[in-house]
């Protein structure tokens, strides 16, 4: 899931301005794959262990204070197809910061990228809530 220019982003109660994109990626960290006696192709696959990561890219000049790896809190963002509140959606996730990095490009302003791992409330519930 890729969200460009979300209208409002907060983490642990702090509002972040100048967020250019939020990317939510999902990956299986362990696969269960099974083969039969009938041929070379798997007949079963499942993802019993998964990881949902969230990447927030923002303008690095927006402040000196950035979260640190291990910081935990609720990440919330609101997006809508237009600048109005019409059809606005809010995405919420309990997250832990895993990486904070910066990039200086010649053709664009410096960016700060904050990466999170999203946590489930009980292991079964999806870590991302959209309302």
């Amino acid at each position, binding site marked *: 899931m890729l969200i460009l220019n979300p209208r409002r982003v907060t983490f642990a109660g702090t509002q972040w301005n100048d967020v250019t994109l939020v990317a939510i990626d999902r990956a299986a960290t362990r696969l269960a794959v*099974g083969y*039969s006696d009938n041929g070379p192709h798997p007949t*079963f696959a499942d993802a*019993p262990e998964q990881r949902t990561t969230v990447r927030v890219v923002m303008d690095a000049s927006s402040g000196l204070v950035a979260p640190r790896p291990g910081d935990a809190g609720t990440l919330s963002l609101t997006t809508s197809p237009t600048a109005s509140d019409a059809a606005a959606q809010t995405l919420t996730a309990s997250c832990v910061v895993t990486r904070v990095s910066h990039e200086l490009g010649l053709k664009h302003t410096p960016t700060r990228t904050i990466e999170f791992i999203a946590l489930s409330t009980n292991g079964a519930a999806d870590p991302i809530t959209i309302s």
Partner: protein
Amino acid sequence: MSSFKSINLFGSGPHRFSLSVQGEEVVPNYVLGNGDHGTYPVGPRELDVIVTGRLVAASESALWTLRDAIAAQLTDPPVPGTLIDNHGRSWSNMSFIRYEEHGPTDRGRVCSIAYTATFRCFA
């Protein structure tokens, strides 16, 4: 479809059949008191047929039903029966002697667990 005593124990998920080591069982002579070096053939090895696979169920309770059905065949003493693989190859007089699960239950789209089941043809 594979079966043991005509029961489809492993059909819920992928499973494969393999054979253990076959041939002569040899014992060091010093174990038998027949000398201090070399080995002595004592007879053919017992045949083991090994089923490796994964039980797959839609729910936790359904997975336990599959496990319980397998455990019910692990009798003491073992009661031999016919084991048939996925291609119709059969082994008669096989005893179900061991069932081992590998790791915790995997809970993804479905509940599943990997296992190894060992059947032996006792001499």
